[in-house]
């Protein structure tokens, strides 16, 4: 039985202070409400003889000021909460990227080095980790109470969640969005390792080749190399140095080629055609599974990018 929750990430402590702030202010308001109620109920019970006298008329101003005061205090807490939320919402650019695929009733994580794990996540301590998550069926939610973070994992699009674990240990991982019968079984653990242990773990669990190397084989097997090759850029744009660079589109807008754009163009090429190219690329939707897609995206990123990870 424990009453305290481990504060294992950078923002955990601050979230606890925010919640403690709310508890304090609410306790004060409750003390006033319960106190006044009990006081009045005892003092002014119907057969108590004390003199009621005239009702003081100043209470109108007292009411407005009391309400405004409590609103201001809570507004302060709202602003504090919003600032923290903005920090939680936008992952830092130098975060270690780990791909997470949620499937009905299990979590699959894939590290850049090709390591794959089910229902567990090994992360280094004191380093920002960004989870790029998508779901293969219904909406799930990646929730680590000890880090005070959670994010819904939506099917058909990427959701990002980042944290910086600052305490070594093993912490609960829950799915906190109802996803069917096995919702309660879709739990796991996040293991925070010190740097040497993390490096050792990566080595032990590393498969023969990294995500990118897997991606390279898929790049050839699916025939992408037929058009996207280094020498000819007639039929298709070259992918070297694509990741992170601005891409001019046929409809005049430019987008930065992040992993979402790459995944998009594989699944549905004709929606964003690169300027001065014919829409000849076939769609691979339903052909390439989520897992292979992650490898292809990792491979394309590894083809030399503006800011190497």
């Amino acid at each position, binding site marked *: 039985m424990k009453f305290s929750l481990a504060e294992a990430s950078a923002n955990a402590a601050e979230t606890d202070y*925010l919640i403690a702030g*709310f508890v304090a202010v609410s306790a004060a308001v409750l003390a006033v409400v319960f106190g006044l109620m009990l006081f009045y109920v005892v003092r002014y*019970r119907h057969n108590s003889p004390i003199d009621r006298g005239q009702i003081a008329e100043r209470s109108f101003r007292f009411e407005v000021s009391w309400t405004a005061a409590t609103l201001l205090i809570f507004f302060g807490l709202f602003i504090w909460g919003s600032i923290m939320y903005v920090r939680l919402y936008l992952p830092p650019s130098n975060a270690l990227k780990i791909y997470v695929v949620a499937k009905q009733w299990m979590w699959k994580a894939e590290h850049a080095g090709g390591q794959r794990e089910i229902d567990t996540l090994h992360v280094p301590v004191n380093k920002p980790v960004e989870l790029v998550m998508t779901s293969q069926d219904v909406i799930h939610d990646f929730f680590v109470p000890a880090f005070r973070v*959670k994010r819904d994992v939506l099917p058909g699009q990427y959701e990002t969640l980042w944290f910086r674990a600052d305490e070594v240990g093993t912490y609960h991982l829950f799915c906190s*969005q*109802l996803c069917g019968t096995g919702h309660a079984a879709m739990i796991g653990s996040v293991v925070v390792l010190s740097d040497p242990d993390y490096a050792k773990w990566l080595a032990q669990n590393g498969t023969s080749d990294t995500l990118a190397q897997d991606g390279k084989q898929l790049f050839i097997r699916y025939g992408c190399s037929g058009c996207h090759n280094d020498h000819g850029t007639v039929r298709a744009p070259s992918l070297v140095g694509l990741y992170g660079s601005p891409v001019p589109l046929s409809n005049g807008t430019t987008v930065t080629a992040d992993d979402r754009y790459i995944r998009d163009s594989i699944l549905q090429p004709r929606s964003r055609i690169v300027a001065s190219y014919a829409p000849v690329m076939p769609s691979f939707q339903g052909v390439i599974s989520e897992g292979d897609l992650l490898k292809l995206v990792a491979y394309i990123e590894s083809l030399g990018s503006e800011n190497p990870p």
Partner: protein
Amino acid sequence: MSQTAALNERIASPLGRPSYLADGVTLKSWLLTTDHKRIAILYMISITVFFFLGGSAAALIRYNLIVPEGMLRSAETYDRLFTMHGVIMVWFFLVPAVPVTIGNFVLPLMIGAHDLAFPKINLLSWYLFIAGGALALYALFAGGVDTGWTFYAPLSTDYAEGNVVLLVTGIFVSGFSSIATGLNFIVTIHRLRAPGMTWYRMPIFLWSLYSTSVIMVLATPVLAITLLLLAFERIFHVGVFDPRIGGDPLLFQHMFWFYSHPAVYIMILPGLGVVSEIIPAFSGKELFGYKFVAWCSIAIAVIGFFVWGHHMFVAGQSLYASVVFSMLSYFVAVPSAIKVFNWLGTLHKGYIRFDAPMLYALGFIGLFTMGGLTGLFLAALAADVHLHDTYFVVAHFHYIMVGGMVSAYFGALHYWWPKISGRIYPDMIARAAALLMFLGFNLTFFPQFILGYLGMPRRYHSYPPEFQVLHVLSSAGATILAVAYLMPLFYLTWSLFRGAGAPANPWDAKGLEWQTPSPPFTANFAVTPVVTEGPYAYPTPGTSQPHV
């Protein structure tokens, strides 16, 4: 009422007219009645049945959570149980509860009218409610649904088995019942007030029924179209919420919560109105800041429509929209705070009596305030990231719905019971039941705040062992709460047969409904009363000792 005693006598004189209960005893006279009082009784019986059905589902949920691996072996059964608990309690108990039972009965009496504006539509409303209820119950008992009462897509549209479409149709039909009631109340309050009863001479309960009806009428249609789109997508396996063809699952959440957040104000506003009636009556003193409290009901109804995004802070909603919805959610808390302040102002220098309705009302003030404040926790963005979809949220809305709304419903039931049934219930047992409910409630739901902070997610059939002690405490509280809810069923039914006859005004309260005999005759008033003063015309303290 400063009218002469003679006029009072003429207004209320039964002149040998039978009370509405005795006015026709055949089943047909009950099932085809257009008398708002009889429809209120029909509703009260059906509401009670649904309350105990939903309550038994809750008891099974608490039973299951006693051990970490779940007493019920299958998670499937647990999912169907909390879906049943959610659906029945939301649509078939909390949304209708006070408006259709107490509101139907008391509204025409309070404004001095013979009946609601559209009596036939009122009866249609009850039949729609029963039809919707029957459909939903059949869907829930013939296999059930495991999506929770929120039906999030794509789980509800593609991946859940169970008769989702049947349950959704049941709710769709019961939605028209609440639209009909809301429409009836709004037009009645606008058009049928007795001469002299201006808006500021109306009791606060009517203000809160009016604002509840505004929400019922304007929010329920959006639920109807959302459920229609959901049913279409489930039947044809393609629809606007389907991510595989580029649909947006968040669109479902937006449309669902556009109804469901105002719906939680549909549930609580009548309770606020009831407490604003009970507190002045048992403090023997005028309600403090009448205009503030009246306009706060309307403010809650209107601002309640701006805030639904706070249910989706971690659901993938855009950063900008989350911040906007979070800020708006703080403004909706202001009217509720003003109401609590004014209730305390009413207690100040009053002549407070501790009858059962007053105990329920005092319990309401405390528990509703706690529920409201914990709502502010969840409205703060960063706190919600941690607390969302945990037992903290479960505790928050149960404090408002059970601690607030159900105790207000029981308070209203006891307050108007002499008027409805013409009988007096045994007072001491009723006070004991009220206290027991307060204790059992807190033991059930306060541990859940701690569980939520520790990270225990909602809707979990089994859980890590370290949460077990708090769950066992909560389940223990649930048994006490169950007993506290069963007691009124017994002694109120007992009072129907053996209770003493009730006088016209057992509580010496003000208001037109206390002018009529208990129980009133079918036409309510022999002569339409003329209203000459405000609703809470208790002698102000210090001037004269109100007669005891």
